[in-house]
């Protein structure tokens, strides 16, 4: 069993390394875009709220594979110059995951009593200050558990990129099949690989929950 892994270490190492890069970069970008969209959804400007709602309704309800297909093939049809497959995959994952982050952030914001933002507005804070100084820091606590689920889903969703010529961990089975290796053992090793990647995320979640638990 172990030889399946050790004999093909190059495949596993390169595949998972790309998975990690896809995940980390998409996670950071989704967090930023999702928070901005979440802010749009609670903003006093109706046009921004409409943009946020439209975005969520579009991308949360589109299958991820379709988002990939639109970027990889649709953009090519429209003669748009695409960046490398890696960055196109990052784009697809970010566009999709941001919709979920947005909803998590918005629901976190809704757990904060309106009195908090009223008091902040009454002191003379701008919308941006109310959000960043008062509401988001308190909302973060409620956001941590659902956000962890979103990011675990993102990590697993990176495997869709294998279907679009990105050689991440999801592409290992195809390469292994060319080398005539045992498919079942290959899949088991990939599953173990993902478990190993997810464990730190769980510890991160627990740490963040403890840190944000206030008096």
């Amino acid at each position, binding site marked *: 069993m172990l030889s399946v892994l050790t004999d093909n270490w190059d495949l596993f190492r390169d595949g998972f390394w790309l998975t990690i890069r896809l995940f980390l970069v998409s996670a950071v970008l989704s967090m930023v875009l999702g928070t901005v969209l979440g802010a749009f959804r609670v903003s006093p400007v109706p046009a921004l709220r409409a943009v946020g709602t439209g975005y969520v309704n579009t991308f949360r309800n589109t299958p991820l594979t379709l988002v990939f297909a639109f970027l990889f093939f649709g953009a090519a049809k429209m003669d748009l110059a695409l960046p490398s497959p890696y960055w196109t995959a990052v784009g697809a994952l970010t566009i999709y995951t941001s919709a979920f982050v947005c909803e998590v952030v918005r629901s976190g914001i809704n757990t904060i009593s309106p009195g908090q933002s009223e008091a902040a507005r009454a*002191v*003379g*804070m701008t919308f941006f200050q109310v959000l960043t100084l008062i509401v988001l820091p308190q909302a973060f606590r409620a956001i941590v558990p659902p956000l962890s689920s979103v990011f675990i889903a993102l990590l697993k969703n990176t495997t869709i990129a294998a279907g679009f010529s990105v050689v991440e961990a999801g592409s290992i089975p195809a390469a292994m099949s060319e080398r005539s290796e045992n498919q079942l053992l290959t899949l088991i090793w990939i599953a173990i690989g993902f478990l190993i990647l997810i464990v730190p995320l769980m510890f991160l979640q627990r740490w963040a929950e403890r840190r944000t638990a206030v008096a």
Partner: protein
Amino acid sequence: MSDSGTLTQTGLVALTGVNKHFGELHVLKDINLSIAKGEVVVVIGPSGSGKSTLCRAINRLETIDSGTIELDGQPLPSEGKSLATLRADVGMVFQSFNLFAHKTILQNVTLGPLKVRKMDAKQAEKRALELLERVGVASQASKYPAQLSGGQQQRVAIARALAMDPKVILFDEPTSALDPEMIQEVLEVMIDLAKQQMTMVVVTHEMGFARSAANRVVFMADGEIVEQADPESFFTNPTSRRAQDFLGKILKH
């Protein structure tokens, strides 16, 4: 601080023909009210009379449907930075305190001066500690709001409002959420402010406060200002039927 005398004619706060609806409900009916600098105006009335809405409209936490609200001769901006700037000059004390739950008592008081007034940190802290001393909670400065009693929290909220050097402070039922034994400590701070010529609009059910600290009592019912007078004449000799009814009910016991 250096207002020209000409403004006193229109008042520091001036509401003209203000109307507001909540759906079908007409909560503010053609309100005209002018509040002079240094004046303490107490707004009373049965619940649902629109008095809290009136109070919250003055710094636009409630929007209005028609009419104008002016502060120091300037109409309230509708949104954005200019509204924030204007709100910085209007202190507000809420029924449910609304201290920032994730900040210490000291940070609650310094946050506005630091982030809105861009005051230097040392100066903001020094001033905050003076204000906390003044309202009698300086010893709690490093605690979080949830660790304080309601009365203490409300006094911190008053200090937070004062830290902005406001032109006027709005009190929206400041003692209604307090246990009876804590009401007095908050009222004392407010009476002290009134003595120092702070311009105040106070929505309250505390008739004792109205009698001792108000320059004028405004009585509201069903979204209208029914009657206004100095406290002495209002309480001893209300002219309107509805004010007589109201006082009859609350002063009996």
